[in-house]
């Protein structure tokens, strides 16, 4: 039981350390620039609003502020200016370089499935080739004391 408690505490400390590191890094302007300080909003579930000077850089999905017809984008407000809180982040816009690959949140499951297939199929082929190689090898020596995958171990006992 003590082992579980100790492990739990270590994990919680690790969570706190990672969170602290993220918070600390967020204070650096270079890190802020890396992720961009633009607001993101997908129009699909936007909650009205729409009075901001639409300077949102347009890397995000959607981009519509939803609701008000008073809202105009960069074309009508070339002066730009600070983006006012409008539709907020209900739609969870996906911005940046990764979003070029992953646009649209509704297909997340399929995207993940695709990655699983891309990894699992070659991995299975490699595994089978390795097994064949082992079976033809004259002497088999156990190479690892540690199980390759965490699933091969059970519990903390």
């Amino acid at each position, binding site marked *: 039981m003590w082992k579980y408690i100790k492990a739990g505490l270590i994990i919680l400390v690790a969570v706190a350390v990672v969170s602290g590191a993220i918070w600390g890094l967020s204070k650096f302007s270079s890190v802020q620039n890396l992720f961009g300080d633009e607001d993101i909003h997908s129009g699909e579930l936007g909650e009205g609003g729409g009075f901001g000077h639409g300077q949102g850089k347009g890397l995000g999905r959607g981009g519509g502020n939803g609701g008000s017809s008073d809202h105009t984008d960069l074309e009508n407000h070339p002066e730009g200016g600070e983006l006012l809180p409008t539709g907020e982040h209900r739609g969870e816009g996906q911005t940046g370089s990764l979003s070029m690959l992953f646009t649209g949140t509704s297909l997340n499951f399929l995207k993940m499935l695709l990655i699983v297939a891309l990894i699992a199929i070659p991995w299975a082929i490699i595994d089978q080739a390795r097994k064949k190689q082992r079976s033809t090898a004259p002497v088999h020596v156990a190479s690892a004391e540690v*199980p390759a995958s965490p699933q091969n171990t059970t519990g903390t006992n």
Partner: protein
Amino acid sequence: MENVTMKTTKKWSKLLTNLVVDLVFLVAFLASIEVKGTGLVIHEWLGVGILAFILVHVLLHWNWVTAVTKKFFRKLVAEPRLNYIVDLLIFIAFITIIFSGLVISRVVLPAIGLEGLRSGFWKVLHAQATNLTIILTGIHLGLHWKWFVSMFQKYVSTPLHMRKANKQVVESPVTVTVDAE
């Protein structure tokens, strides 16, 4: 003999626990990233709940974590090292999602009397970390696909076949002939 059976059952139940926890974790994660489907309230609370899943998941594999950590910089074959690196990145990515999500929270933080930030930086970080986690989780599942298949066979496929076979034996008519002599 009885002792061996009990040990096997105990081990199997732990494997089953692992499988159930992993599947629920996966479904919870997939549900939480579909904000449009769940709405903001479920999205945020489920996100906080995922922290508990992370804790349970790591605890269930704690022996492996400690074993690989001890040997990581010493003699260790590539496979556990690769799994370890992917798992560590997933852990960091998940904490980034949860932490940045809490910072911009509009449901969880107000529920405890705090106000979330309205910074674009945290929103972008939240979205980017989510994208990265989808990729990493896909890699993680791909690397453990064999385990999932074997677990499915052990706990779903084989018992179903066994049940079918037993049913056929019970349902098949038995004719008994007795000699009068």
